[in-house]
């Protein structure tokens, strides 16, 4: 009897078969892949599986424990909902890219050694870029190329770190780094790039909004969360992560204030949310790690829901910017309601899932007496609430900024609505039954989210954030600008580099 099947195999095989199928058979195959992969995961016993000897090393393709199982299961639920959302897409190449990308992310989650982890990590990077290029616009071609170059850089750092770490006797097992030397530092930098930690984050807000409308849903989940998983596995309790995470939490919400492109607002929001997770990993206590895991699991669900909401709006209206949308609650009522559930969930409005997951990292910071971290995280939490409010108002309420629109706008096709309904239901279900969520965490935890103290604290900062939003509504009117970020360095730097290369080539030609 087969004891273990690498879940990524279902995705790779599915991607190979998909071009030969059409219509309902293709849809059935797409939806059955994450279901089969989930069943394969859940039927495997915890321990080490899939050991392969290669070049004198033992590669482990199946490390099954609570952490990998939890991430794997949430990945599969998110992949299922995202594939439901993408069922109407006729371009087979987009589905194939998504399947290889998701399969590789899942493969990395179960990898027990650095080499197999690196293999899946790189396939994920290369397959995901097609989700950007397949949009087929000038902006997406260039953004995809920048995305690829950044991830190649990150991959090289990671590979260099692995070689140095293994060469200095660290072994190939992918476990917590015992001490920081050159090898682990390079590995950490590779992970930080994919986790979008400032100043190495700009690729995310640059590339994701240029992806296809369904591709951006997959992208918003799998790259950064695989990196968060890798940080939990390799660098728990690394103090610098507390500082970087707290900065991220603030940086993301500050940048989102001026953004006009709706997907880009969510990208900066995502960076802020990842900051909470990075902080929890840096704290490294059982509560800190559980807090990071809680946020990763729940963020995968509500961030995908929110991305779907904006993709639905763009799919039906053609608009991507707040300045060209408004008052859509009348014509897209289901999208509006589901988007509000996602927005309220990410902000931590009780009784949705964000409320039961968000406060854990803050409690972990209190446990180790780091008051400044709490103040920065709550600052970030105010922004996490401000931006959903802003998008709900600017896109679905407020004035209609596209009155002369010629097309009749309705809710999107049924498959897109069902993709969102699945995720919205999860946001409500785990908010009402947090014990089931907590049972998936790596460390046992006795945590009560619904205390009077927690509720009053949340209602206070959220209530007054809403008040400020109402008072500053005019100030928040979307403006037709972009904001410079750290990608400026390589976008402008590459022009200088090319000028130098041309100059040198010319001089050589003259001499």
């Amino acid at each position, binding site marked *: 009897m087969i004891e273990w099947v690498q879940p990524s195999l279902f995705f790779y095989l599915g991607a190979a078969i998909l071009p030969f199928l059409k219509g309902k058979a293709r849809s059935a195959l797409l939806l059955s892949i994450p279901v089969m992969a989930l069943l394969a995961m859940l039927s495997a016993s915890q321990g080490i599986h899939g050991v392969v000897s290669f070049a004198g090393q033992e590669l482990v393709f199946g490390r099954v424990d609570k952490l990998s199982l939890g991430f794997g299961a949430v990945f599969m639920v998110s992949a299922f909902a995202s594939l439901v959302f993408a069922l109407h897409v006729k371009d087979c190449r987009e589905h194939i890219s998504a399947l290889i990308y998701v399969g590789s992310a899942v493969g990395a989650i179960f990898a027990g050694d650095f080499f197999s982890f690196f293999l899946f990590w790189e396939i994920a990077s290369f397959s995901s870029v097609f989700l950007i290029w397949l949009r087929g616009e000038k902006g997406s071609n260039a953004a995809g190329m920048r995305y690829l170059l950044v991830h190649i850089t990150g991959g090289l750092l990671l590979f260099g770190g692995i070689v140095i770490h293994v060469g200095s006797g660290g072994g190939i097992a992918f476990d917590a780094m015992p001490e920081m030397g050159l090898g682990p530092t390079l590995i950490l930098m590779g992970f930080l790039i994919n986790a979008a930690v400032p100043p190495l984050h700009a690729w995310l807000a640059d590339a994701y909004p240029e992806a296809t409308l369904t591709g951006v849903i997959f992208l918003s989940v799998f790259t950064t969360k695989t990196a968060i998983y890798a940080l939990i596995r390799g660098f728990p309790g690394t103090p610098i992560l507390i500082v970087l995470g707290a900065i991220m939490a603030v940086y993301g919400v500050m940048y989102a204030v001026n953004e006009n492109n709706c997907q880009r607002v969510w990208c900066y929001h995502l960076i802020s949310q990842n900051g909470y997770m990075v902080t929890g990993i840096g704290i490294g206590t059982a509560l800190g790690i559980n807090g990071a895991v809680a946020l990763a699991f729940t963020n995968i669900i509500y961030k995908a829901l929110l991305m779907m909401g904006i993709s639905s709006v763009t799919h039906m209206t053609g608009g991507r910017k707040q300045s060209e949308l408004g008052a859509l609650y009348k014509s897209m009522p289901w999208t509006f309601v589901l988007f509000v559930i996602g927005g309220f969930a990410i902000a931590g409005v009780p009784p949705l899932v964000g409320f039961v997951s968000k406060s854990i990292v803050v409690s972990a910071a209190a446990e180790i007496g780091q*008051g400044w971290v709490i103040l920065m995280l709550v600052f970030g939490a105010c922004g996490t609430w401000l931006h959903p409010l802003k998008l709900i108002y600017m896109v679905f309420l407020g004035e209609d900024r596209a009155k002369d629109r010629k097309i009749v706008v309705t809710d999107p096709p049924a498959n897109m609505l069902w993709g969102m309904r699945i995720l919205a239901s999860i946001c409500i279900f785990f908010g009402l039954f947090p014990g089931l969520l907590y049972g998936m965490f790596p460390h046992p935890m006795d945590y009560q989210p619904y205390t009077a103290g927690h509720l009053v604290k949340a209602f206070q900062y959220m209530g007054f954030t809403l008040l400020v*939003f109402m008072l500053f509504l005019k100030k928040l009117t979307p403006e037709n*600008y972009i904001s410079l970020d750290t990608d400026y360095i390589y976008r402008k730097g590459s022009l200088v580099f090319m000028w130098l290369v041309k100059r040198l080539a010319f001089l050589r030609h003259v001499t």
Partner: protein
Amino acid sequence: MNLGDFLRKYGEDEVFCKKAKKGFYVFLGLVVISDFFVPHDAVNFIWDKIPGWWSFYGFISTVVMILLSKAIGHAWLMKSEDYYD
């Protein structure tokens, strides 16, 4: 009545919107007052002893976030959409 009609009925009802706004202000007041009576889970920091602290902090944080981002954006970071073209 379908969902669209239901939302439109309340969204376009100015009396309802005014009442909702008033209800929200009452809710804010009640939340601040309740902080004087609610037992706190743990007192670790000085702000844990100040009733209404998180209302104040939420208000200030959001004001700072909006004003500072807009100020830096207008002074430095915000550029026309074809800046990189």
